[in-house]
Structure formats: C-alpha cells, structure tokens
C-alpha cells in the first residue's frame, strides 16, 4: 500500500539574529512532522521568496517577522505583504525585542500579531502556543492533532 504524506504547513521566519532563528526552529521541533520552518536572514529575502511563490505553491500558515533588521525591517515587509493579494490575509506575527505601544499599534493596523521575544523558558513555551494560535483554526487543529 502506498502512503501519501500530507504536505507540511509552512512557517516563514525572517530574523537577522541567528540565535533567535535557532530558538524558533527549536520551538517548532515538536511539530516537525507537519510544520516546516523556512528561515531568512532579512526581510527582503523573505519577501522575494514569498513574491516568487506561485498559486501552485502552498500558502504559508504563518509568517513571523523580526522588526529590527538591516536592509528592510519587519514593519516595511509587513506593509508590502499586505499590498500583495496573495498575502493580504495570511497570518503574520511581528516577533521582536520591542514592547513599544507604537509597534503594537502598527501590528494591529496591518492585522498582524505582536509578540515580544521571551526572556525565559516558560515564556518561550507560551509563545510557541501563541504562534500557532495565530494560524487559521483549521491549521491549528491539524498541527495539534498530530502532536
């Protein structure tokens, strides 16, 4: 009997900090059977990857953007993403060291989530759940069912 594996849910993450990339990859490891995290060192690389996707490619279930990055910051990337029809409703989270109300308001204006980077293990556990909570309900169910 041939078994067909369901395609993995794609999470796109852009951050210039290698340690934070490792942190998020680790956080999603428990969902590795059905979630793939694709990482980029800056937002412009992530944006160009997303722009080059065709309608045949699966939509990412979540896009995570750091705010402070060289070349293009996460806020600009978010603005540009929302101008693209394909990504106008894709769940996006700004994942940042900032806790400024100004940045939170910006995220809200562009219908994105806002999560401050954690200080400790317990916070990271909660944040991983919060990341998944930003996906559509259907995706959340699929991700959690398997794990």
């Amino acid at each position, binding site marked *: 009997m041939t078994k067909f594996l369901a395609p993995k849910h794609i999470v796109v993450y852009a951050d210039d*900090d290698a*340690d*934070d990339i*490792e*942190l998020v990859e680790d956080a999603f490891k428990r969902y590795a059977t059905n979630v793939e995290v694709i990482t980029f060192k800056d937002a412009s690389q992530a944006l160009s990857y997303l722009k080059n996707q065709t309608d045949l490619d699966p939509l990412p279930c979540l896009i995570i953007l750091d705010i402070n990055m*060289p*070349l293009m910051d996460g806020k600009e990337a978010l603005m540009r993403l929302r101008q693209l029809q394909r990504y106008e409703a894709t769940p996006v989270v700004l994942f940042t*060291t*900032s*806790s400024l109300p100004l940045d939170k308001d910006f995220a809200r204006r562009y219908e994105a989530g806002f999560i*401050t*980077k*954690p*200080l*400790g*293990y317990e*916070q*990271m556990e909660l944040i991983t759940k919060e990341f998944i909570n930003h996906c559509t309900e259907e995706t959340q169910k699929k991700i959690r069912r398997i794990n």
Partner: protein
Amino acid sequence: MMTLYDFTLLPDRDKINLLYEQGVYIGKRKTGNTSIILYQFEGFYAEVFYRTYRRHIETISCFAETTRLDPYLTEINVEHLV
C-alpha cells in the same frame, strides 16, 4: 518608581516578568558560551546571563553605571547609517 535595590530583592521570576513587560531591550553580547542580554528598566540596567539563549537563565545582574554599557556599544552596527 522601583529602585535598583527594590528590584534586586525580587525573586528571579518577578524580575523576568517585569523586564519582559516593561523593560527596554538595549543589546546582546556573548562571552564564551554565555549569551547576555541587556535591558533598561526604570532608572537602571539589568543584564540577563543565559546558559541557553533565552531559555535557561544563569543570573540577572543589575547596575546603574553607564560604563558597564561599553561592551554593548561595540555590538551596535552603524554600517547602514554611514
């Protein structure tokens, strides 16, 4: 307003929550295998020393002197401003 002394008396969990909710991230540095993140809170600074980055905290060190900020200044990338 919380003083540096008041802050040092808090349990680590409360320190972490306060820094997470109200601290301002200043920068990050590494010495050996230890990652250190600097936050500014109220009128002082707090360095969080990690055994595992953003997961396992070794210690939290608080200070008010700006001379201790020097190691972070070299980490700030101003290339894009030039």
